[in-house]
Structures are given as structure tokens and as C-alpha cells.
């Protein structure tokens, strides 16, 4: 297995694990509060929709010529990765609230509890919330699996990494029967943001016609440099935030 394939697998695994943790919180909250049957039908329907989307978009993406594929995929990965990295930097610097699975679980349970009684048959609330939650989180998984997989001509490998991540999260969720609040989500999102942005930079530039010095070996420089730059931004933003807090305290 090449270094690029390992990077691909790791990125897909981490991204899918994070998305699965977020979807699991929603499913558990609705399922335990209202109707497991309707919730699971919602989950199954969302998974079916995602499968149809993957079947439709996958061949379309892989049929593109390599140059065009790398520009499109590189550009999308860059936009997506930079958004993930931006949020992770802001969270790590304390400028954006951390994703709190327990708080989200409690909020979802409260909303589910106050949404009216289940009148037998299919509970529309449980179905809709579970369907929407799994579909929205799953779309990101599909996007990452397809873009990474298509670019490496190894959608199977990317899909396998995603399946392992999702299976692990589901097994852990069933075992603890609670949201996986201890998963270091922001650290994982930080890592995924760095990987998506690095691969996006590499593939995007290649697709646009640029030639990297050292070929694929350039990734071994891009990834650590981007990580170091992002960590520096976190340190600078934390430093900037501290005096502001101090000034407010002094003024109060």
C-alpha cells in the first residue's frame, strides 16, 4: 500500500467516524425518546437515498478525464477541507463553541419529547429527524469517499475505510447506549481538514497543469507544513483572545 493510499484511508476513516458520531447522537436521541421503529425506518431510508446518490454520482465522476477530475475534485476538496480546517482552528482557539454531543443529545431529546404524542403507526417526527440527520451527515461521507476514491481510482478502498469507521461508531454507540461524547471530535476534524486541504492542493494544482517537485512525495511536505501553519494560527488567535478577555475583566 502506498503512502497516498494510507493517507486516503486515514482521511476517509476519520471523516466518516466524525460524521457517524454526529448522526448517532441524533438517532439515539429520537429513538430513545420516541419510536425506535420509525427512527430506524428513517435511517434505512436515508441510507437507501445515499446509496442511490453514490451509484449515480460515482460513475459520472470516475468517467471524467484525469485532468478534469483532479481540477474538479481538487477544487471541491480544497473548499471543503478549508471549511473544516477553519472551523477546527476557531474551535481550538476558543473562538467557536466546541461540538458538545451530550448537549446536542439533550436538546434533541427535549425537542423530541415536546413534539406531540406518537399516535401509532409511523411516527413522522422520528422518521423525519432520523432521515434528515443521517442524510445530511451521510452526504459528507459520500462526498469524501467519492472524491478521494475516484481520484485514486480506488473507490472500493475509500468505501471500505468509511464502512469500518461507521461500523465501529455504531457498535460503540449500541454498547454504551449514549452519545459518544468522549470522542475527540475537534482533533479529528482538525486532522481531516489538514488532509482534505493537502490532497485538494496537490490534486487541484496537478489538474490545473502544475508539476509538483518530487511528484507525490510533495504531499510529505504539504501535510506537515499546513499542519504547522494551522497550529500557529491557533496559537496566535489564542494569544489575541487572552488580552481581550483580560481587558473585559479589568473594565468590569
Amino acid at each position, binding site marked *: 500500500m502506498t503512502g497516498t493510499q494510507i493517507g486516503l484511508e486515514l482521511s476517509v476513516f476519520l471523516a466518516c467516524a466524525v460524521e457517524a458520531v454526529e448522526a448517532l447522537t441524533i438517532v439515539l436521541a429520537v429513538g430513545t425518546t420516541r419510536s425506535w421503529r420509525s427512527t430506524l425506518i428513517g435511517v434505512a431510508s436515508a441510507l437507501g437515498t445515499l446509496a442511490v446518490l453514490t451509484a449515480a454520482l460515482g460513475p459520472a465522476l470516475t468517467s471524467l478525464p484525469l485532468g478534469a477530475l483532479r*481540477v474538479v475534485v*481538487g*477544487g*471541491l476538496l*480544497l*473548499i*471543503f477541507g*478549508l*471549511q473544516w*480546517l*477553519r*472551523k477546527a*482552528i*476557531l474551535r481550538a*482557539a476558543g*473562538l*467557536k463553541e466546541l461540538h458538545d454531543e451530550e448537549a446536542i443529545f439533550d436538546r434533541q431529546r427535549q425537542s423530541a419529547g415536546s413534539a406531540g404524542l406518537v399516535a401509532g403507526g409511523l411516527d413522522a417526527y422520528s422518521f423525519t429527524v432520523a432521515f434528515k440527520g443521517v442524510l445530511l451527515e451521510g*452526504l*459528507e461521507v459520500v462526498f469524501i469517499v467519492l472524491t478521494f476514491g475516484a481520484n485514486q481510482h480506488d473507490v472500493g478502498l475509500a468505501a471500505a475505510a468509511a464502512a469500518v469507521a461507521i461500523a465501529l461508531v455504531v457498535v460503540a454507540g449500541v454498547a454504551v447506549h449514549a452519545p459518544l461524547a468522549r470522542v475527540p471530535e475537534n482533533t479529528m476534524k482538525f486532522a481531516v481538514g489538514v488532509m482534505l*486541504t493537502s490532497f485538494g*492542493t496537490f490534486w*487541484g*494544482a496537478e*489538474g*490545473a*497543469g*502544475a*508539476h*509538483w*517537485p518530487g511528484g507525490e512525495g*510533495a504531499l510529505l511536505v*504539504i501535510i506537515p*507544513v*499546513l499542519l504547522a*501553519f*494551522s497550529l500557529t*494560527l491557533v496559537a496566535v*488567535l489564542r494569544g*489575541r*483572545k487572552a488580552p*481581550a478577555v483580560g481587558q473585559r475583566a479589568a473594565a468590569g
Partner: protein
Amino acid sequence: MSRLAGLARGVWDFIVGDDWRIALGVVAALGVTAIVSDTSVSAWWILPVAVAVLLLVSVSAVARPRR
């Protein structure tokens, strides 16, 4: 029509996200890379520089105190 608008909004949120400048900057940087690649000047450095600038501008905008 409202469903179409909702779908468009969803696609926009999914791809562009919170900061449209990132999407615009990436598209512009890819365009410049393609143009420079057609010349004798090497173009591999354009995207990494663009990534650093976009990240810096985007997080600084949030960190800047509001007046």
C-alpha cells in the same frame, strides 16, 4: 419554487459553507494556476500560497473584535 430555492440553498451551504470567500479564492487560485502552467514559469506554489492566505483572512475575520 420554494423547494427549488431550498435545494439551491442546501447545495450552497453544503459546498460553499460559512465563508464564500474561501470558495471564490480557491476557484480564482485554480484559474491562475492553469494560466501560469501554460507559461514557462512553474505554478505549483500558487495553491499553497492561496491556501495560507485564505485561511489567514478567513479566521482573522472571525477573530477581529467587532466595533
